[in-house]
Protein backbone atom coordinates (compact mmCIF):
# COMPACT_ATOMS: atom_id res chain seq x y z
CA UNK A 1 0.00 0.00 0.00
CA UNK A 2 1.48 3.31 -0.98
CA UNK A 3 1.73 5.70 1.91
CA UNK A 4 -0.44 8.74 1.94
CA UNK A 5 -3.06 7.25 -0.33
CA UNK A 6 -5.40 5.44 1.99
CA UNK A 7 -6.78 6.10 5.37
CA UNK A 8 -4.88 3.69 7.51
CA UNK A 9 -6.22 1.49 10.22
CA UNK A 10 -7.10 3.50 13.28
CA UNK A 11 -7.45 6.85 11.59
CA UNK A 12 -10.90 8.28 11.97
CA UNK A 13 -12.45 9.91 8.94
CA UNK A 14 -13.20 13.08 10.88
CA UNK A 15 -9.59 13.53 11.90
CA UNK A 16 -8.51 13.12 8.35
CA UNK A 17 -11.13 15.58 7.18
CA UNK A 18 -10.00 18.02 9.87
CA UNK A 19 -6.43 17.68 8.73
CA UNK A 20 -7.60 18.31 5.21
CA UNK A 21 -9.20 21.59 6.20
CA UNK A 22 -6.13 22.70 8.12
CA UNK A 23 -3.95 21.82 5.17
CA UNK A 24 -6.15 23.85 2.82
CA UNK A 25 -6.04 26.89 5.07
CA UNK A 26 -2.29 26.68 5.49
CA UNK A 27 -1.73 26.10 1.81
CA UNK A 28 -3.79 29.10 0.80
CA UNK A 29 -2.15 31.35 3.37
CA UNK A 30 1.31 30.24 2.31
CA UNK A 31 0.65 30.93 -1.33
CA UNK A 32 -1.11 34.23 -0.64
CA UNK A 33 1.82 36.53 -1.47
CA UNK A 34 2.29 34.82 -4.81
CA UNK A 35 -1.41 34.70 -5.59
CA UNK A 36 -1.82 38.37 -4.65
CA UNK A 37 1.10 39.32 -6.86
CA UNK A 38 -0.37 37.48 -9.83
CA UNK A 39 -3.70 39.15 -9.13
CA UNK A 40 -1.99 42.55 -8.98
CA UNK A 41 -0.36 41.96 -12.34
CA UNK A 42 -3.74 42.30 -13.98
CA UNK A 43 -4.60 45.60 -12.33
CA UNK A 44 -3.80 49.12 -13.39
CA UNK A 45 -0.94 50.86 -11.64
CA UNK A 46 -3.29 53.10 -9.71
CA UNK A 47 -5.27 50.17 -8.37
CA UNK A 48 -2.12 48.26 -7.60
CA UNK A 49 -0.53 50.90 -5.44
CA UNK A 50 -3.75 51.63 -3.57
CA UNK A 51 -4.69 47.95 -3.27
CA UNK A 52 -8.13 48.64 -4.69
CA UNK A 53 -9.97 47.39 -7.74
CA UNK A 54 -11.73 50.28 -9.43
CA UNK A 55 -10.42 49.96 -12.94
CA UNK A 56 -10.87 46.33 -13.74
CA UNK A 57 -8.44 43.64 -14.79
CA UNK A 58 -6.61 43.16 -18.06
CA UNK A 59 -3.44 41.86 -19.65
CA UNK A 60 -2.27 45.40 -20.20
CA UNK A 61 0.73 45.23 -17.88
CA UNK A 62 1.94 42.10 -19.59
CA UNK A 63 1.91 43.96 -22.84
CA UNK A 64 3.77 46.85 -21.23
CA UNK A 65 6.61 44.76 -19.93
CA UNK A 66 6.93 42.74 -23.11
CA UNK A 67 7.55 45.88 -25.09
CA UNK A 68 10.75 47.56 -24.14
CA UNK A 69 12.39 50.81 -25.06
CA UNK A 70 14.58 49.97 -28.03
CA UNK A 71 18.19 49.66 -27.03
CA UNK A 72 17.39 48.46 -23.54
CA UNK A 73 17.19 44.94 -22.22
CA UNK A 74 14.15 43.31 -23.75
CA UNK A 75 12.17 40.37 -22.44
CA UNK A 76 13.02 38.38 -25.55
CA UNK A 77 16.76 38.91 -25.17
CA UNK A 78 16.81 38.16 -21.46
CA UNK A 79 14.65 35.09 -21.92
CA UNK A 80 16.84 33.70 -24.67
CA UNK A 81 19.98 34.31 -22.66
CA UNK A 82 18.54 32.62 -19.60
CA UNK A 83 17.24 29.68 -21.58
CA UNK A 84 20.50 29.00 -23.35
CA UNK A 85 22.63 29.43 -20.25
CA UNK A 86 20.41 27.19 -18.14
CA UNK A 87 20.06 24.39 -20.68
CA UNK A 88 23.70 24.30 -21.70
CA UNK A 89 24.97 24.45 -18.12
CA UNK A 90 22.58 21.70 -16.99
CA UNK A 91 23.60 19.44 -19.86
CA UNK A 92 27.27 19.98 -19.03
CA UNK A 93 26.60 19.34 -15.34
CA UNK A 94 24.99 16.02 -16.18
CA UNK A 95 27.76 15.07 -18.58
CA UNK A 96 30.31 15.67 -15.83
CA UNK A 97 28.30 14.35 -12.89
CA UNK A 98 27.19 11.01 -14.28
CA UNK A 99 30.68 9.59 -14.83
CA UNK A 100 31.84 11.13 -11.56
CA UNK A 101 28.97 9.47 -9.73
CA UNK A 102 29.91 6.20 -11.39
CA UNK A 103 33.42 6.61 -10.04
CA UNK A 104 32.05 7.28 -6.58
CA UNK A 105 29.29 4.71 -6.39
CA UNK A 106 29.59 1.81 -8.78
CA UNK A 107 33.33 1.39 -8.95
CA UNK A 108 34.40 3.75 -6.22
CA UNK A 109 37.85 5.23 -6.07
CA UNK A 110 39.58 4.57 -2.82
CA UNK A 111 39.32 8.11 -1.48
CA UNK A 112 35.66 8.58 -2.36
CA UNK A 113 34.78 10.12 1.00
CA UNK A 114 37.43 12.81 0.60
CA UNK A 115 36.36 13.52 -2.94
CA UNK A 116 32.75 13.92 -1.85
CA UNK A 117 33.80 16.21 0.95
CA UNK A 118 35.84 18.29 -1.47
CA UNK A 119 32.86 18.74 -3.77
CA UNK A 120 30.58 19.83 -0.98
CA UNK A 121 33.23 22.05 0.58
CA UNK A 122 33.36 24.17 -2.56
CA UNK A 123 29.84 25.31 -1.68
CA UNK A 124 31.09 26.74 1.58
CA UNK A 125 33.07 29.41 -0.25
CA UNK A 126 30.95 32.56 -0.45
CA UNK A 127 30.47 33.59 -4.08
CA UNK A 128 31.21 37.15 -3.10
CA UNK A 129 34.69 36.17 -2.07
CA UNK A 130 35.84 35.06 -5.47
CA UNK A 131 33.96 37.60 -7.58
CA UNK A 132 36.83 40.01 -8.01
CA UNK A 133 39.44 37.51 -9.24
CA UNK A 134 36.79 36.04 -11.50
CA UNK A 135 35.98 39.51 -12.81
CA UNK A 136 39.64 40.30 -13.46
CA UNK A 137 40.28 37.16 -15.44
CA UNK A 138 36.96 37.23 -17.24
CA UNK A 139 37.80 40.78 -18.31
CA UNK A 140 41.22 39.64 -19.52
CA UNK A 141 39.74 36.86 -21.60
CA UNK A 142 36.88 39.00 -22.93
CA UNK A 143 34.25 36.92 -21.22
CA UNK A 144 32.45 39.75 -19.45
CA UNK A 145 28.95 40.06 -20.76
CA UNK A 146 28.87 36.68 -22.52
CA UNK A 147 26.77 33.62 -22.03
CA UNK A 148 29.94 31.55 -21.77
CA UNK A 149 31.05 32.97 -18.45
CA UNK A 150 27.68 32.31 -16.88
CA UNK A 151 27.62 28.77 -18.20
CA UNK A 152 31.07 28.16 -16.75
CA UNK A 153 30.12 29.55 -13.35
CA UNK A 154 26.72 27.87 -13.16
CA UNK A 155 28.28 24.48 -13.87
CA UNK A 156 30.61 25.09 -10.95
CA UNK A 157 27.69 26.10 -8.75
CA UNK A 158 25.55 23.05 -9.54
CA UNK A 159 28.12 20.31 -10.01
CA UNK A 160 28.70 19.49 -6.33
CA UNK A 161 25.05 18.93 -5.57
CA UNK A 162 24.58 17.00 -8.81
CA UNK A 163 27.50 14.72 -8.07
CA UNK A 164 26.27 14.06 -4.58
CA UNK A 165 22.69 13.37 -5.57
CA UNK A 166 23.54 11.27 -8.61
CA UNK A 167 25.92 9.20 -6.57
CA UNK A 168 23.22 8.24 -4.10
CA UNK A 169 20.85 7.34 -6.91
CA UNK A 170 23.51 5.13 -8.44
CA UNK A 171 23.94 3.45 -5.08
CA UNK A 172 20.35 2.27 -5.44
CA UNK A 173 21.11 0.19 -8.49
CA UNK A 174 21.15 -3.49 -7.50
CA UNK A 175 24.61 -4.90 -7.43
CA UNK A 176 23.65 -8.05 -9.33
CA UNK A 177 22.64 -6.15 -12.45
CA UNK A 178 25.96 -4.34 -12.56
CA UNK A 179 27.94 -7.48 -12.01
CA UNK A 180 25.96 -9.17 -14.74
CA UNK A 181 26.84 -6.36 -17.11
CA UNK A 182 30.51 -6.51 -16.11
CA UNK A 183 30.66 -10.22 -16.66
CA UNK A 184 29.21 -9.65 -20.10
CA UNK A 185 32.15 -7.34 -20.69
CA UNK A 186 30.10 -4.22 -21.50
CA UNK A 187 31.97 -0.92 -21.40
CA UNK A 188 31.32 1.84 -18.90
CA UNK A 189 29.23 3.78 -21.37
CA UNK A 190 27.04 0.81 -22.16
CA UNK A 191 26.71 -0.07 -18.51
CA UNK A 192 25.48 3.42 -17.88
CA UNK A 193 23.09 3.33 -20.77
CA UNK A 194 21.51 -0.03 -20.40
CA UNK A 195 21.54 -0.71 -16.70
CA UNK A 196 22.21 2.27 -14.51
CA UNK A 197 20.49 5.18 -16.21
CA UNK A 198 17.08 3.58 -16.69
CA UNK A 199 16.92 2.73 -13.00
CA UNK A 200 18.32 6.02 -11.76
CA UNK A 201 16.34 8.09 -14.26
CA UNK A 202 13.84 9.62 -11.82
CA UNK A 203 16.66 10.65 -9.54
CA UNK A 204 18.64 12.13 -12.39
CA UNK A 205 15.55 14.03 -13.48
CA UNK A 206 15.21 15.42 -9.97
CA UNK A 207 18.84 16.47 -10.03
CA UNK A 208 18.47 18.14 -13.40
CA UNK A 209 15.42 20.01 -12.19
CA UNK A 210 17.27 21.35 -9.17
CA UNK A 211 20.11 22.49 -11.44
CA UNK A 212 17.63 24.26 -13.69
CA UNK A 213 15.97 25.96 -10.73
CA UNK A 214 19.23 27.24 -9.27
CA UNK A 215 20.66 28.35 -12.60
CA UNK A 216 17.52 30.15 -13.78
CA UNK A 217 17.14 32.00 -10.50
CA UNK A 218 20.78 32.99 -10.05
CA UNK A 219 21.25 36.71 -9.56
CA UNK A 220 24.66 37.62 -8.21
CA UNK A 221 26.98 36.50 -10.98
CA UNK A 222 24.43 37.45 -13.59
CA UNK A 223 24.26 41.05 -12.53
CA UNK A 224 27.91 41.51 -11.54
CA UNK A 225 29.32 40.16 -14.78
CA UNK A 226 26.62 40.50 -17.41
CA UNK A 227 25.18 43.88 -16.52
CA UNK A 228 25.74 45.21 -20.02
CA UNK A 229 25.50 42.22 -22.36
CA UNK A 230 23.99 38.74 -22.32
CA UNK A 231 21.84 39.82 -19.38
CA UNK A 232 19.47 37.27 -17.93
CA UNK A 233 15.96 37.21 -16.51
CA UNK A 234 16.68 38.33 -12.93
CA UNK A 235 18.21 41.54 -14.26
CA UNK A 236 15.22 42.04 -16.54
CA UNK A 237 12.84 41.69 -13.60
CA UNK A 238 14.78 44.24 -11.56
CA UNK A 239 14.75 46.66 -14.45
CA UNK A 240 10.99 46.95 -13.98
CA UNK A 241 11.49 48.58 -10.61
CA UNK A 242 11.06 52.07 -11.91
CA UNK A 243 11.79 55.42 -10.39
CA UNK A 244 9.14 57.01 -12.54
CA UNK A 245 5.83 56.67 -10.79
CA UNK A 246 4.16 53.51 -9.66
CA UNK A 247 5.40 50.22 -10.91
CA UNK A 248 3.85 47.58 -8.70
CA UNK A 249 1.54 46.15 -11.37
CA UNK A 250 4.25 46.05 -14.01
CA UNK A 251 6.68 44.51 -11.56
CA UNK A 252 4.09 41.88 -10.69
CA UNK A 253 3.60 41.05 -14.34
CA UNK A 254 7.34 40.88 -14.93
CA UNK A 255 7.81 38.66 -11.88
CA UNK A 256 5.08 36.31 -13.04
CA UNK A 257 6.59 35.98 -16.49
CA UNK A 258 10.08 35.46 -15.13
CA UNK A 259 9.15 32.77 -12.65
CA UNK A 260 6.60 30.94 -14.74
CA UNK A 261 8.89 28.49 -16.62
CA UNK A 262 10.59 27.15 -13.52
CA UNK A 263 7.36 27.10 -11.53
CA UNK A 264 5.60 25.08 -14.23
CA UNK A 265 8.57 22.72 -14.49
CA UNK A 266 8.59 22.29 -10.73
CA UNK A 267 4.86 21.63 -10.60
CA UNK A 268 5.06 19.04 -13.36
CA UNK A 269 8.01 17.27 -11.81
CA UNK A 270 7.19 17.46 -8.11
CA UNK A 271 6.12 13.85 -7.79
CA UNK A 272 9.31 12.81 -9.53
CA UNK A 273 11.34 15.04 -7.20
CA UNK A 274 9.86 13.43 -4.13
CA UNK A 275 10.30 9.97 -5.56
CA UNK A 276 13.84 10.79 -6.54
CA UNK A 277 14.66 12.20 -3.13
CA UNK A 278 13.07 9.31 -1.28
CA UNK A 279 14.75 6.86 -3.58
CA UNK A 280 18.24 7.61 -2.69
CA UNK A 281 19.20 11.12 -1.77
CA UNK A 282 19.86 9.79 1.61
CA UNK A 283 20.78 6.18 1.34
Amino acid at each position, binding site marked *: MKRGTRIGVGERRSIVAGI*GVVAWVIGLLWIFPVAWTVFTSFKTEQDASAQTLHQGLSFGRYGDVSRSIPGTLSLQAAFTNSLVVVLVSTVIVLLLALPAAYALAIRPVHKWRDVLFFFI*STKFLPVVASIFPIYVYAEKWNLIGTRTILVILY*VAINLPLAVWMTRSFFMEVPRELIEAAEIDGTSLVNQLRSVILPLAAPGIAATALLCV*IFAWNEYFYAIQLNFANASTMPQWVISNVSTRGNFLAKLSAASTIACLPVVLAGWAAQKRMIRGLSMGA*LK
Partner: protein
Amino acid sequence: MTAAAADVALKGRVGDPFSSAWRRRLPLLPALVYMIAITQLPFLVSIYYSFTNLKDKTQSLIPEPTRFIGIDNYKQIFSDPFFRQAVWTSLKMTVLAVLLSLLIGTLFALLLDRKFLGQGLIRTLLITPFLLMPVVAALIWKQQMFSSLFGILDKVLNFLGLNSVAFISSHPLGSIVTVLVWQWTPFMMLIILAGLQSQPGDIIEAANVDGASAVGIFRQLTLPHLRRYLELGALLGSIFIVQAFDAIDVMTGGGPGSTNVPYYVYQESIGGGFRYGSASAYAIVVVIFAIIIATFALRVLSSLFADEERA
Protein backbone atom coordinates in the same frame (compact mmCIF):
# COMPACT_ATOMS: atom_id res chain seq x y z
CA MET B 1 24.61 -2.02 -2.22
CA THR B 2 27.22 -0.45 0.00
CA ALA B 3 30.58 1.03 -0.78
CA ALA B 4 32.36 -1.57 1.34
CA ALA B 5 30.62 -4.38 -0.42
CA ALA B 6 31.55 -2.86 -3.73
CA ASP B 7 35.17 -2.72 -2.67
CA VAL B 8 35.13 -6.35 -1.69
CA ALA B 9 33.32 -7.38 -4.82
CA LEU B 10 35.76 -5.67 -7.08
CA LYS B 11 38.90 -6.71 -5.26
CA GLY B 12 37.97 -10.29 -5.83
CA ARG B 13 37.75 -9.95 -9.57
CA VAL B 14 40.17 -11.80 -11.72
CA GLY B 15 42.04 -10.12 -14.45
CA ASP B 16 42.09 -6.47 -13.31
CA PRO B 17 44.74 -4.62 -15.31
CA PHE B 18 47.52 -3.01 -13.27
CA SER B 19 46.03 0.42 -13.91
CA SER B 20 42.70 -0.47 -12.36
CA ALA B 21 43.01 2.32 -9.84
CA TRP B 22 43.42 4.83 -12.65
CA ARG B 23 40.63 3.33 -14.67
CA ARG B 24 38.42 3.93 -11.68
CA ARG B 25 39.60 7.49 -11.34
CA LEU B 26 39.17 8.35 -14.99
CA PRO B 27 35.40 8.99 -15.00
CA LEU B 28 35.83 11.20 -11.97
CA LEU B 29 38.55 13.35 -13.44
CA PRO B 30 36.56 15.71 -15.69
CA ALA B 31 34.30 16.82 -12.86
CA LEU B 32 37.14 17.02 -10.36
CA VAL B 33 39.48 18.95 -12.64
CA TYR B 34 36.68 21.32 -13.58
CA MET B 35 35.82 22.13 -9.97
CA ILE B 36 39.45 22.59 -9.00
CA ALA B 37 40.05 24.92 -11.91
CA ILE B 38 36.97 27.07 -11.44
CA THR B 39 36.87 27.29 -7.65
CA GLN B 40 40.40 26.84 -6.41
CA LEU B 41 42.21 29.08 -8.85
CA PRO B 42 40.25 32.21 -7.93
CA PHE B 43 40.79 31.21 -4.32
CA LEU B 44 44.55 31.14 -4.84
CA VAL B 45 44.45 34.52 -6.55
CA SER B 46 42.46 35.85 -3.60
CA ILE B 47 45.16 34.64 -1.25
CA TYR B 48 47.68 36.59 -3.27
CA TYR B 49 45.56 39.75 -3.25
CA SER B 50 45.02 39.48 0.48
CA PHE B 51 48.66 40.25 1.10
CA THR B 52 48.54 43.42 -0.99
CA ASN B 53 46.85 46.79 -0.71
CA LEU B 54 45.01 46.33 -3.99
CA LYS B 55 42.28 48.95 -4.47
CA ASP B 56 40.19 50.12 -7.36
CA LYS B 57 41.97 52.84 -9.31
CA THR B 58 39.15 55.25 -8.62
CA GLN B 59 39.88 55.15 -4.92
CA SER B 60 43.05 57.19 -5.02
CA LEU B 61 43.47 60.49 -6.77
CA ILE B 62 47.16 59.93 -7.23
CA PRO B 63 47.87 56.49 -8.64
CA GLU B 64 48.81 54.23 -5.77
CA PRO B 65 50.94 51.32 -6.84
CA THR B 66 49.83 47.96 -5.55
CA ARG B 67 52.36 46.69 -3.11
CA PHE B 68 52.87 43.80 -0.79
CA ILE B 69 51.84 44.67 2.76
CA GLY B 70 52.16 41.37 4.54
CA ILE B 71 49.49 40.51 7.05
CA ASP B 72 48.23 44.06 7.66
CA ASN B 73 44.85 43.22 6.15
CA TYR B 74 44.49 40.26 8.46
CA LYS B 75 45.47 42.22 11.54
CA GLN B 76 42.78 44.74 10.75
CA ILE B 77 40.08 42.07 10.52
CA PHE B 78 40.35 41.02 14.10
CA SER B 79 39.96 44.57 15.37
CA ASP B 80 36.95 45.25 13.14
CA PRO B 81 33.79 45.42 15.26
CA PHE B 82 31.56 45.54 12.19
CA PHE B 83 32.90 42.23 10.96
CA ARG B 84 32.10 40.70 14.34
CA GLN B 85 28.61 42.15 14.00
CA ALA B 86 28.31 40.56 10.57
CA VAL B 87 29.40 37.17 11.89
CA TRP B 88 26.87 37.37 14.68
CA THR B 89 24.15 38.39 12.25
CA SER B 90 25.09 35.52 9.93
CA LEU B 91 24.79 33.11 12.81
CA LYS B 92 21.41 34.45 13.91
CA MET B 93 20.07 34.55 10.37
CA THR B 94 21.19 31.05 9.44
CA VAL B 95 20.14 29.32 12.63
CA LEU B 96 16.75 31.01 12.72
CA ALA B 97 16.01 30.40 9.06
CA VAL B 98 17.15 26.78 9.05
CA LEU B 99 15.41 25.80 12.27
CA LEU B 100 12.16 27.54 11.43
CA SER B 101 11.98 26.20 7.90
CA LEU B 102 12.83 22.70 9.12
CA LEU B 103 10.16 22.85 11.79
CA ILE B 104 7.46 24.25 9.55
CA GLY B 105 8.53 21.99 6.70
CA THR B 106 8.16 18.94 8.89
CA LEU B 107 4.72 20.06 10.00
CA PHE B 108 3.67 20.57 6.40
CA ALA B 109 5.07 17.19 5.43
CA LEU B 110 3.12 15.50 8.20
CA LEU B 111 -0.02 17.25 7.01
CA LEU B 112 0.52 16.24 3.43
CA ASP B 113 1.28 12.67 4.26
CA ARG B 114 -2.38 11.79 4.36
CA LYS B 115 -4.85 11.56 1.57
CA PHE B 116 -7.43 14.30 1.53
CA LEU B 117 -9.35 16.16 -1.11
CA GLY B 118 -6.95 18.33 -3.10
CA GLN B 119 -3.79 16.94 -1.53
CA GLY B 120 -1.89 17.21 -4.76
CA LEU B 121 -3.02 20.77 -5.34
CA ILE B 122 -2.05 21.91 -1.86
CA ARG B 123 1.33 20.29 -2.21
CA THR B 124 1.76 22.10 -5.50
CA LEU B 125 0.90 25.42 -3.90
CA LEU B 126 3.22 24.86 -0.96
CA ILE B 127 6.17 24.06 -3.21
CA THR B 128 5.84 27.23 -5.25
CA PRO B 129 7.83 29.70 -3.11
CA PHE B 130 10.92 27.54 -3.47
CA LEU B 131 10.69 27.75 -7.25
CA LEU B 132 10.62 31.56 -7.36
CA MET B 133 13.66 33.68 -8.02
CA PRO B 134 15.04 34.85 -4.68
CA VAL B 135 15.02 38.43 -5.97
CA VAL B 136 11.37 38.09 -6.94
CA ALA B 137 10.49 36.62 -3.56
CA ALA B 138 12.28 39.48 -1.84
CA LEU B 139 10.57 42.06 -4.06
CA ILE B 140 7.15 40.50 -3.44
CA TRP B 141 7.62 40.73 0.30
CA LYS B 142 9.18 44.17 0.14
CA GLN B 143 6.67 45.86 -2.16
CA GLN B 144 3.47 43.83 -1.83
CA MET B 145 3.54 42.73 1.77
CA PHE B 146 5.81 44.85 3.94
CA SER B 147 5.71 48.22 2.19
CA SER B 148 4.15 51.05 4.14
CA LEU B 149 3.12 52.85 0.98
CA PHE B 150 1.53 50.06 -1.04
CA GLY B 151 1.70 46.95 1.09
CA ILE B 152 -1.27 44.77 1.85
CA LEU B 153 -0.21 44.08 5.43
CA ASP B 154 -0.30 47.79 6.15
CA LYS B 155 -3.84 48.02 4.81
CA VAL B 156 -4.88 45.03 6.91
CA LEU B 157 -3.35 46.54 10.04
CA ASN B 158 -5.07 49.85 9.44
CA PHE B 159 -8.32 48.06 8.76
CA LEU B 160 -8.03 46.36 12.14
CA GLY B 161 -7.37 49.73 13.70
CA LEU B 162 -3.74 49.03 14.54
CA ASN B 163 -0.77 51.26 13.96
CA SER B 164 1.36 50.84 10.87
CA VAL B 165 4.52 48.89 11.33
CA ALA B 166 7.60 49.73 9.31
CA PHE B 167 8.50 46.08 8.91
CA ILE B 168 11.71 46.34 6.98
CA SER B 169 13.07 49.47 8.64
CA SER B 170 12.30 48.41 12.20
CA HIS B 171 12.81 44.68 11.89
CA PRO B 172 15.41 44.12 9.18
CA LEU B 173 16.60 40.71 10.37
CA GLY B 174 13.08 39.50 10.94
CA SER B 175 12.05 40.57 7.45
CA ILE B 176 14.96 38.75 5.84
CA VAL B 177 14.38 35.61 7.90
CA THR B 178 10.71 35.69 6.92
CA VAL B 179 11.54 35.64 3.24
CA LEU B 180 14.19 32.93 3.71
CA VAL B 181 11.86 30.72 5.71
CA TRP B 182 9.06 31.28 3.19
CA GLN B 183 11.29 30.11 0.37
CA TRP B 184 13.11 27.23 2.03
CA THR B 185 10.28 25.57 3.93
CA PRO B 186 9.07 23.79 0.75
CA PHE B 187 12.57 22.39 0.24
CA MET B 188 12.59 20.97 3.76
CA MET B 189 9.06 19.75 3.26
CA LEU B 190 10.07 17.77 0.19
CA ILE B 191 12.95 16.11 1.99
CA ILE B 192 10.86 15.19 5.01
CA LEU B 193 8.04 14.02 2.76
CA ALA B 194 10.52 11.77 1.03
CA GLY B 195 11.50 10.45 4.41
CA LEU B 196 7.92 9.86 5.47
CA GLN B 197 7.08 8.08 2.27
CA SER B 198 10.09 5.83 2.49
CA GLN B 199 8.86 4.57 5.83
CA PRO B 200 7.68 1.00 5.55
CA GLY B 201 3.94 1.22 5.83
CA ASP B 202 3.39 -2.24 7.29
CA ILE B 203 5.22 -1.43 10.53
CA ILE B 204 2.94 1.54 11.06
CA GLU B 205 -0.06 -0.65 10.29
CA ALA B 206 1.10 -3.18 12.80
CA ALA B 207 1.57 -0.53 15.45
CA ASN B 208 -1.88 0.83 14.74
CA VAL B 209 -3.39 -2.61 15.03
CA ASP B 210 -1.60 -3.03 18.33
CA GLY B 211 -3.41 0.09 19.51
CA ALA B 212 -0.52 2.52 19.67
CA SER B 213 -1.46 6.20 19.72
CA ALA B 214 -0.63 8.51 16.86
CA VAL B 215 1.73 10.50 19.03
CA GLY B 216 3.42 7.34 20.23
CA ILE B 217 3.89 6.05 16.70
CA PHE B 218 5.38 9.37 15.72
CA ARG B 219 7.82 9.47 18.57
CA GLN B 220 8.98 5.88 18.55
CA LEU B 221 8.86 4.96 14.88
CA THR B 222 8.66 7.99 12.63
CA LEU B 223 11.02 10.41 14.31
CA PRO B 224 14.02 8.06 14.49
CA HIS B 225 13.48 7.16 10.86
CA LEU B 226 13.32 10.84 9.97
CA ARG B 227 16.48 11.74 11.81
CA ARG B 228 18.70 11.29 8.82
CA TYR B 229 16.37 13.32 6.63
CA LEU B 230 16.25 16.10 9.20
CA GLU B 231 20.03 16.14 9.32
CA LEU B 232 20.22 16.23 5.54
CA GLY B 233 17.74 19.08 5.42
CA ALA B 234 19.62 21.03 8.06
CA LEU B 235 22.93 20.48 6.32
CA LEU B 236 21.82 21.38 2.81
CA GLY B 237 19.68 24.25 4.08
CA SER B 238 22.58 25.72 6.03
CA ILE B 239 24.89 25.51 3.04
CA PHE B 240 22.50 27.55 0.95
CA ILE B 241 21.10 29.90 3.58
CA VAL B 242 24.46 30.96 4.97
CA GLN B 243 25.20 32.33 1.51
CA ALA B 244 21.98 34.38 1.42
CA PHE B 245 22.62 37.54 -0.55
CA ASP B 246 19.80 38.43 -2.92
CA ALA B 247 17.23 39.12 -0.23
CA ILE B 248 19.55 41.43 1.68
CA ASP B 249 20.56 43.32 -1.44
CA VAL B 250 16.97 43.90 -2.48
CA MET B 251 15.26 44.44 0.85
CA THR B 252 17.59 46.26 3.17
CA GLY B 253 20.79 47.00 1.29
CA GLY B 254 22.79 45.99 4.31
CA GLY B 255 22.56 48.01 7.45
CA PRO B 256 22.73 47.14 11.10
CA GLY B 257 21.11 43.87 11.91
CA SER B 258 20.81 42.50 8.42
CA THR B 259 24.34 42.46 7.04
CA ASN B 260 25.61 38.93 7.05
CA VAL B 261 29.15 37.90 6.26
CA PRO B 262 28.76 37.48 2.49
CA TYR B 263 27.13 40.89 2.27
CA TYR B 264 29.82 42.46 4.42
CA VAL B 265 32.57 41.05 2.22
CA TYR B 266 30.65 42.29 -0.80
CA GLN B 267 30.43 45.79 0.67
CA GLU B 268 34.16 45.77 1.30
CA SER B 269 34.87 44.61 -2.23
CA ILE B 270 32.82 45.52 -5.29
CA GLY B 271 29.84 46.78 -3.33
CA GLY B 272 31.29 50.18 -2.48
CA GLY B 273 34.54 49.77 -0.59
CA PHE B 274 36.56 48.71 -3.63
CA ARG B 275 39.31 47.58 -1.28
CA TYR B 276 40.05 44.35 -3.07
CA GLY B 277 43.10 43.44 -1.04
CA SER B 278 41.35 43.86 2.26
CA ALA B 279 38.20 42.13 1.01
CA SER B 280 40.26 39.15 -0.10
CA ALA B 281 41.65 38.85 3.40
CA TYR B 282 38.12 38.81 4.81
CA ALA B 283 37.19 36.16 2.27
CA ILE B 284 40.12 33.96 3.25
CA VAL B 285 39.23 34.24 6.93
CA VAL B 286 35.65 33.29 6.09
CA VAL B 287 36.85 30.30 4.10
CA ILE B 288 39.00 29.11 6.98
CA PHE B 289 36.03 29.33 9.30
CA ALA B 290 33.91 27.55 6.74
CA ILE B 291 36.38 24.70 6.50
CA ILE B 292 36.38 24.34 10.27
CA ILE B 293 32.60 24.23 10.31
CA ALA B 294 32.62 21.88 7.33
CA THR B 295 34.85 19.46 9.17
CA PHE B 296 32.28 19.48 11.90
CA ALA B 297 29.58 18.92 9.30
CA LEU B 298 31.64 16.06 7.93
CA ARG B 299 30.90 14.22 11.13
CA VAL B 300 27.24 14.53 10.29
CA LEU B 301 27.96 13.31 6.79
CA SER B 302 29.95 10.40 8.17
CA SER B 303 27.05 9.38 10.30
CA LEU B 304 24.95 9.43 7.18
CA PHE B 305 27.47 7.22 5.43
CA ALA B 306 27.88 5.04 8.49
CA ASP B 307 24.17 4.35 8.42
CA GLU B 308 24.57 3.32 4.82
CA GLU B 309 27.20 0.75 5.60
CA ARG B 310 25.14 -0.67 8.39
CA ALA B 311 22.13 -1.00 6.11
